[in-house]
């Protein structure tokens, strides 16, 4: 490995956020009685989504919609296309049933907000600038893959409900679900309330942000580690898939970013979104719309393999790609 990769890796592994994630993993594996109460989990989620949305909105109002809409649309298309590539791999190489292949595809096309936030944190850590408006990518990439996954999973399946009905439910869920309401809502508010609004809320939404992320990653370490027990159940193929897929999608994200002329930092964010797999919105949607898919497969892959991989090794790897293939912000 080149010294650059190594130092990028070390910088990430020694950042407080990643170390707290590892502490959470260790606490669970050592059977400690440490546990976060549900209201704390919910509060941290609300905080992180509101903060990232609000700051993104303020950045959009600064940069202007004219600049933002094109990369955002591309990000959305990227998220929607990923399942089309993943599905045949899972179906024919991995020999998963159509419905399981569709469900897993949906997870890898959709995104994980926490992984995105960890990426912004990593860029702060290594002092690489990025466009704050990239949280718009996060906002638009959650839904398309989920909807496509449902379509893929229901094709050829004769169910009680009609496809249209299932889709309508899935779309409503994807658009008015908690996380989208918070993220998009805060983004619009950040955009509408401008620089004065950003100034008034900075003491809450900006200064403590990195520290709150540490606390949340401590919890996510515990959540992810609880999935480790299922790693034996999912088969070797999925273990490998959970590491290779994010790398492939990350590279794809960098290429798109390069094509759009995005800077290195923002490219890393797009790559991270592409590489990340949803473990909150997608599982809930699959349980409701593709109940025959097996949760052990998609939850273990997304939460037990891909999420920890991205947080620890993936970020510096994608950054190394971004560094080579794109040009930084001045």
């Amino acid at each position, binding site marked *: 490995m080149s010294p650059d990769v190594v130092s990028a890796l070390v910088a990430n592994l020694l950042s407080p956020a990643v170390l707290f994630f590892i502490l959470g993993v260790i606490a669970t594996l050592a059977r400690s009685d440490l*546990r*976060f*109460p*549900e209201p704390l*989990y*919910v509060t941290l989620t609300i905080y992180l989504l509101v903060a990232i949305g609000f700051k993104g909105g303020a950045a959009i109002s600064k940069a202007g919609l004219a600049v933002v809409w094109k990369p955002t649309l591309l990000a959305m298309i990227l998220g929607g296309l990923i399942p089309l590539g993943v599905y045949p791999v899972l179906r024919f190489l991995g020999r998963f049933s159509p419905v399981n292949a569709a469900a897993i595809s949906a997870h890898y096309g959709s995104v994980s907000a926490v992984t995105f936030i960890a990426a912004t944190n990593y860029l702060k850590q290594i002092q690489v600038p990025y466009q704050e408006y990239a949280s718009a990518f996060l906002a638009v990439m959650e839904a398309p893959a989920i909807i496509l996954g449902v379509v893929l999973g229901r094709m050829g399946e004769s169910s009680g409900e009609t496809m249209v009905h299932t889709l309508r439910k899935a779309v409503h869920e994807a658009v008015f679900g908690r996380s989208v309401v918070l993220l998009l809502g805060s983004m619009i508010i950040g955009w509408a309330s401008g620089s004065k609004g950003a100034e008034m809320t900075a003491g809450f939404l900006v200064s403590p942000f990195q520290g709150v992320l540490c606390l949340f990653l401590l*919890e996510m370490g515990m*959540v992810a580690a*609880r999935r480790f027990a299922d790693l034996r159940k999912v088969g070797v193929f999925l273990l490998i898939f959970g590491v290779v897929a994010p790398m492939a999608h990350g590279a794809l994200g960098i290429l798109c970013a390069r094509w759009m002329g995005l800077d290195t930092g923002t490219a890393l964010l797009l790559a991270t979104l592409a590489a990340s797999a949803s473990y*909150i919105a997608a*599982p*809930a949607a699959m*349980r*409701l719309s593709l*109940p025959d898919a097996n949760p052990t497969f998609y939850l273990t892959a997304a939460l037990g393999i891909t999420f920890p991989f991205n947080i620890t090794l993936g970020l510096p790897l994608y950054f190394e790609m971004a560094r080579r293939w794109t040009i930084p912000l001045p």
Partner: protein
Amino acid sequence: MNPSPNTHPMKRVTVVCEKLAREAVLRLLKEVGAHGWTLWEVEGSGNQGHRLADIPEFTNIQIEIIVRPPVALELLGRLQQDFFSRYAMIAWETEIRVIRSEKF
């Protein structure tokens, strides 16, 4: 001094299930004609593994519904038919005696 209350036989149906099923179960309660329900979050363990009470998407709820006996039968039947294959769920009924039976 000592008022003697009139108690009436009724059924209490209890459902423990993953939180994901919440809206679907509440819709079913309306359909079968239950007049009310009580619900709270629980941690649990069963066939489908241990469900901790820390992430809302993965936690459990317990729902208690007081209904007249025929409604209990209908409710349990519908749960068995439509819900048990889709959701992590158990359900049972208990005989109870209520006051203010006109509410149920």
